[in-house]
């Protein structure tokens, strides 16, 4: 059997399409990897019997045209999968088995991909370290005591450890890009509305967006192409023709103008991150891009804005977990109201409770204008900053995160220090624009660090092309000794 651990998603697709290997061989390889890697705790659910059945069925087909022909993929456990348990990392959905399929995952299966299992994540995607999952911490394959980032931490961990050839996550404030940065992988948050939100467990509906997480930029283009597209079931889905991101991928970035925002040079930023940023700037210069200093003056207000808007939307979205229609129900309580209160008190974890309470508070009578309305106004200012900036530049380059992966337990006692992880990623969600994190180097401990490229809305091809050009020059290499097996 070939060693698919070194193969990219695109390479595996080509091997299957040219019948050099079967879908079953590939599927069995990744199943074996998953079975050996329980220490990472990156999976919540596996569905190997189904995967093998689907792989065999795929191999007997005549048509191998799909973009993801016969490739097994594990996905974040926030995407509803028909007849496969979907927990969102929460006790309250521990036994929830959807009777329908999310649009994004359905798109993957219709391109020939096969579900391998469901990946661990922070509870309801609320977290930056995967430590809020009801199903326990996921471990970063980079180091035994390291978090993989979050909320798509299981996705990043499984990808970096080769338990899936690629994966998908969701990004509300950095939940794809930050774990990608922490694990030496590529993660893209698309323009808001490019991928359907239908069938994804909702966190903050005006910010949530699904996106690809892959080993390289070429795979990222391919997976984005497969998962995106208009969906009438999502009223905020953008109605436009699907683009051929993978076919149109090229590294010609000569003459493009790249902005460097001075506000991202935050206090106490490790020197390594600053020098990584400089390295990125040099690479772009050498590729013929023009570097321009830009200003996004409201950057420091993005996190406070996010921590009003996101909890407000979450408090409303999570009102549906009432112990009646689906999910966990407490046995305690004398009447309906007490049943609700006990169900939610027992079913939600501490971080989810914190956010529901904050959200309820900022939306409550007497506080709405001071908090929620104020945040919506500042959100406008943040979006205006980007709009203005993109009149002069094609893209913006920043670090992805203010640090490399941190230790398990290091930030759990202080919500604000945890929130600060998303300082470079959150502004993009508030503005609804696309951004990619690519691995760009290692710090002195050998932990990966990422750089982030941002463009205006619907400029995914451009952001992918710039990332593609940078990837070639950076030539990032990560060899993990599979200590967890």
């Amino acid at each position, binding site marked *: 059997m070939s060693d698919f651990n070194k193969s990219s998603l695109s390479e595996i697709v080509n091997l299957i399409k040219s019948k050099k290997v079967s879908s079953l061989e590939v599927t069995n390889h990744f199943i074996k990897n998953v079975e050996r890697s329980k220490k990472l705790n990156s999976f919540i659910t596996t569905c190997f019997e189904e995967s093998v059945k689907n792989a065999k069925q795929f191999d007997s087909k005549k048509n191998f045209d799909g973009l993801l022909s016969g490739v097994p993929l594990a996905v974040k456990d926030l995407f509803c999968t028909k007849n496969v348990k979907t927990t969102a990392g929460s006790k309250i959905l521990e*036994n929830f*088995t959807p*009777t*329908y399929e999310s649009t994004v995952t359905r798109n993957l299966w219709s391109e020939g991909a096969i579900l391998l299992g469901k990946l661990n994540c922070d509870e309801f995607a609320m977290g930056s370290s995967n430590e809020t999952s009801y199903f326990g911490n996921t471990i970063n394959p980079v180091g035994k005591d390291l978090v993989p980032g979050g909320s798509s931490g299981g996705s990043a961990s499984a990808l970096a450890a080769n338990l899936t050839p690629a994966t998908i996550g969701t990004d509300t404030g950095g939940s794809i890009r930050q774990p990608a940065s922490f694990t030496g992988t590529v993660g893209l948050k698309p323009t*808001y*509305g490019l991928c359907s939100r239908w069938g994804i467990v909702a966190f903050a509906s005006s910010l949530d967006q699904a996106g690809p997480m892959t080993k390289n930029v070429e795979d990222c283009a391919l997976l984005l192409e497969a998962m995106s597209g208009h969906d009438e079931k999502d*009223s*905020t889905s*953008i*109605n436009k023709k699907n683009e051929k991101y993978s076919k149109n991928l090229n590294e010609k970035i000569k003459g493009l103008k790249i902005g460097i925002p001075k506000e991202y040079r935050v206090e106490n930023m490790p020197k390594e991150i600053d020098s990584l940023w400089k390295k990125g700037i040099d690479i772009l210069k050498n590729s013929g891009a023009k570097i321009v200093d830009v200003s996004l003056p*409201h950057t*420091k*207000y993005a*996190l*406070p*804005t996010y*921590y*009003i808007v996101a909890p407000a939307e979450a*408090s409303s979205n999570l*009102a549906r977990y009432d*112990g*009646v*229609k689906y*999910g966990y129900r407490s046995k305690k*309580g*004398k*009447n*309906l109201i*007490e*049943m609700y*209160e*006990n169900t*939610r*008190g027992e079913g*939600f974890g*501490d971080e989810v*409770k*914190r956010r*529901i*309470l*904050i959200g*309820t*508070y*900022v939306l*409550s009578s007497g506080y709405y204008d*001071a908090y929620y*309305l*104020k*945040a*919506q*106004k*500042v*959100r*406008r*200012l943040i*979006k205006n900053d980007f709009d203005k900036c993109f009149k002069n530049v094609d893209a913006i380059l920043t670090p992805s995160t203010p640090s490399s992966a941190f230790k398990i337990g290091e930030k759990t006692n202080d*919500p*604000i220090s945890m929130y600060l992880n998303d300082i470079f990623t959150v502004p993009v969600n*508030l*503005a609804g624009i696309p951004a990619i994190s690519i691995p760009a180097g290692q710090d002195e401990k050998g932990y990966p660090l990422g750089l982030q490229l941002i463009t205006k809305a619907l400029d995914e091809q451009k952001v992918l092309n710039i990332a593609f050009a940078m990837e070639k020059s950076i030539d990032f290499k990560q060899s993990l000794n599979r200590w967890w097996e």
Partner: protein
Amino acid sequence: MSIDKNQVKKVAKLSRISLDDTKLESLSKDLASILNFVEQLNELDTKKTEPLTSIVDKTLEPRADKINDGKIKNEILKNSPDKNEDFFIVPKVIE
């Protein structure tokens, strides 16, 4: 603005979340520090700024008023923790 234990209790009531009394102290502290953090926004003058309510620059698309779903009662009831053939069952509401 600070938030005390009684306010936390009130918000928990509004949120329909039962809280362990022993956790009230630390939770109030956490919420106060989050509120203190987000209040940085008060540094900004937004009198003339319109709130941003939707990031998608489009009007909602109308669709034909036609039924395209239905007859899925069993599927809808399937995940309920307590149900009979036709209904969700909840604790008694009317005495």
